[in-house]
């Protein structure tokens, strides 16, 4: 079962970043309906990535952690995993913010809202890519001992 959660976490995490990129593309092309649709997919993907990643972290990572810590690359946990798991919370909050902003607030000024959404989507893309890179390092810390 462990592999299902890891693979789902990676796939949905990457899908979330790709949806953020597509959403940004439609925002820049002034297509609000498509921008909103892909922003919603981004949030859903991030939510599933959080649930599957959280499940793996709580129920399986505690068994994998000693292998990383006693292995050749303990920094994989001490730096990459620690920063990843806590920075992910910021990513999730930004994603949640965009959803609430789109659905429950005034979008009075088109230019102001577009600038803000652009900044939010850039942040989501940069953080999403950082998560992927840190995930690779964590995986490397585990695999190097196999």
């Amino acid at each position: 079962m462990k592999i299902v959660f890891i693979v789902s976490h990676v796939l949905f995490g990457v899908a979330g970043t790709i949806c953020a990129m597509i959403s940004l593309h439609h925002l820049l092309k002034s297509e609000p309906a498509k921008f909103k649709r892909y922003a919603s997919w981004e949030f859903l993907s991030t939510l599933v990535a959080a649930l599957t990643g959280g499940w793996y972290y709580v129920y399986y990572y505690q068994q994998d952690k000693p292998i990383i810590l006693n292995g050749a690359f303990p920094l994989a946990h001490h730096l990459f995993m620690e920063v990843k798991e806590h920075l992910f919370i910021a990513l999730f909050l930004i994603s949640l913010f965009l959803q609430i902003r789109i659905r429950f607030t005034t979008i009075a000024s088109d230019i102001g809202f577009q600038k803000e959404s652009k900044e939010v989507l850039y942040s989501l893309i940069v953080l999403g890519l950082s998560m992927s890179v840190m995930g690779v390092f964590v995986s490397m810390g585990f695999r190097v001992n196999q």
Partner: protein
Amino acid sequence: MSEEKKLPEQSLQASLIVCILLNTLVTIVKEICHPVKAFITQIFGNHWVGHMVLLVLLFLLLVILFKTIKINPSFNFNRALRFSIILSVILLVLFYCTKYSLHTD
């Protein structure tokens, strides 16, 4: 993209910035002060789950709270968001590098 007004956007923006910075602060406090980590673990079963749930609840709570507070109109959300993310990354990396180097010494 005009829509009916439901929530003030500034309270939402301010709440996000505060929560991103608080996320970093809570992370560092949790690592330094072990009783805090143990308390969160005791309530939620896992410190990361508790951290995430608390931050999301706080974010929603602050949105409501900030509705009653007048926020400075010169507040630049885009700049604040960039600043809070960069600061969080720097602080988290520095903190965990320091912790690791002290741990291995």
